[in-house]
């Protein structure tokens, strides 16, 4: 029986609408703020409708020199840094984890379970816990202010290894045996059969790891001191305290908007891939 209680339906929708407003409103304000001139942003009350400076502000920000009194790298360059960092981290994590999971599931070697538990233990060591030793190692290797220094310490991932291990454990043994009889060696099996079957998991993981990498704040802050290696997330914070004058909100909001864009794009494009994968169940 379908419940026919119009009041409850109305209430449910109301709650959902309030939820959406709560989430969307700050983004709307950001967008609005990005489209006004600086002066308007210092007036009270804050504008609720967009102005006409959107494209002007965007150009100013992207190509640099948006803020007065600071030496600021153009935003497009900082976005590029962020992109390189996020891509290296996500692709690196995926590559390393999938190979580790492959080794742990399909090969018997001494201390196999020992290695497995070692990887498990690293779950207890996020970046924040090991920040001092990691910084020292990276500094001694001369990797400060470099893309390698930004990405390498964040590349090993226990969660991704577990996830791939679970995926591989669900692949029936007969498929491996059939491949063995067909003459496929281990790497061939990995490339021809395991990878295609893990496609949706890789896509889902890529989205999560890309956003993780893009949003990194603590580690890039420590590692990069050169202005031209800053990532956009770090620079946003710096902009707030940069000028001697009051912060120029319109520019800052525009930068924030630009900073949000790539992760959204990644989610949109990858979503098709993994929804498609989820709906195609195979035997």
């Amino acid at each position: 029986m379908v419940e026919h209680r119009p009041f409850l339906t109305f209430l449910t929708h109301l709650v959902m609408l309030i939820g959406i407003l709560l989430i969307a409103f700050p983004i709307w304000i950001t967008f609005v703020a990005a489209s006004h001139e600086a002066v308007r942003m210092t007036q009270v009350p804050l504008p609720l409708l967009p102005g006409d400076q959107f494209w002007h502000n965007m150009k100013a920000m992207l190509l640099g020199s948006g803020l007065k009194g600071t030496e600021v790298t153009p935003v497009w360059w900082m976005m590029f840094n962020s992109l390189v960092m996020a891509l290296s981290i996500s692709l690196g994590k995926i590559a390393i984890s999938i190979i580790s999971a492959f080794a742990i599931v399909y090969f018997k070697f001494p201390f196999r379970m020992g290695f497995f538990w070692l990887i498990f233990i690293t779950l207890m060591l996020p970046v924040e816990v090991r920040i001092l030793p990691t910084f020292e190692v990276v500094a001694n290797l001369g990797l400060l202010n470099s893309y390698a220094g930004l990405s390498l310490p964040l590349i090993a991932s226990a969660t991704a290894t577990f996830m791939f291990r679970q995926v591989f454990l669900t692949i029936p043994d007969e498929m491996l045996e059939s491949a063995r009889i067909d003459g496929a060696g281990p790497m061939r099996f990995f490339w021809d059969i395991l990878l295609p079957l893990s496609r949706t998991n890789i896509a889902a993981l890529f989205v999560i790891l890309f956003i993780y990498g893009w949003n990194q704040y603590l580690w890039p802050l420590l590692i990069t001191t050169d202005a031209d290696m800053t990532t956009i997330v770090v620079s946003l914070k710096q902009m707030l305290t940069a000028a001697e004058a009051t912060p120029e909100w319109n520019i800052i909001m525009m930068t924030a908007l630009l900073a949000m864009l790539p992760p959204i794009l990644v989610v949109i494009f990858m979503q098709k891939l993994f929804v498609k994968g989820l709906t195609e169940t195979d035997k």
Partner: protein
Amino acid sequence: MAGLTLKNLYKSYGKTEVLHGIDGVIEDGEFVVIVGPSGCGKSTLLRMIAGLEVVTSGEIFIGERMVNDLEPADRDIAMVFQNYALYPHMSVRQNMAYGLKIRGIPKDEINRRVEEAADILEIREYLDRKPRQLSGGQRQRVAMGRAIVREPEVFLFDEPLSNLDAKLRVQMRLEIRKLQQRLGVTSVYVTHDQVEAMTLGDRLMVLNAGHVEQFGTPIELYERPQTLFVAGFIGSPAMNFLPAEGQANGVLRLENGVEITGSRGAGEVILGMRPEDLMADEAGPIRIRASVLEQLGANTLVHGTLEGTDSEMVASLPGTQTVAEGQVVGFSIVAEKVHQFDSASGQRLG
């Protein structure tokens, strides 16, 4: 094309021995079915032949080659699995071509073999579909196609029809039989279904708890089972077993005192009588008190107990017959059809 020889095969997992000295010679082109109850070791034996399990001791020969130490891919075999083991992300054509591609066989040769196999199995129109778009029977045929294109010396089947519905199973087993006769490739087929075994095999190897109970043609196994186990395993409904005592004067005395001729010596024996060999006879010595009837249309199965005892018996009457519950029906049996087995060892006497 080659024969298969198994010499004194033993298999242990750690301390547990699961196969105890399996011997057998399979002729070139023969279709041998390994049959037995769950857990008897038949799949383990098949996997040892395939190279997926290590041989603890003993030797396996494919043709003249001893293959114990060879990888599965080098043994020139092809295997059809119970759950097909098709690669889900590849099309049917790619599934069939995969093994050939790895071996570096030229493309046109691959295409030729794939299309030929597809014609034999009537899966031509599915060549570009993915496995998830096929039914169970179609997938099974693709799995067989994958085995055929390899043109191996030995086909191995691991209970391939177990996942199909009953009607499809009957249809597919005939197709497998015809296919094997057409291709003439030595085949080893594992199943737990004795009807499947009887219809498919040139010869049957009956395994029980890691031992070979008997290795012979279906008719041999049916008419002259060598052990109690084989006698009870082959034939449906199963053979009736009655304890009896052999008397000095050539007579067998049943539990209820009834005597029939045919003793082969003194001592405790177990008599085996197939339900279909018991013939209704008012004056017959075997008297069954009926309890339940199974009307099958072509015949009627009378379930009951031997009069005066608790021993359960089944007899088969032709056509549709009615027997009242509790009614005693008399049967007689030809002496040659009474199988005798030693009580202690289960071995056939005579």
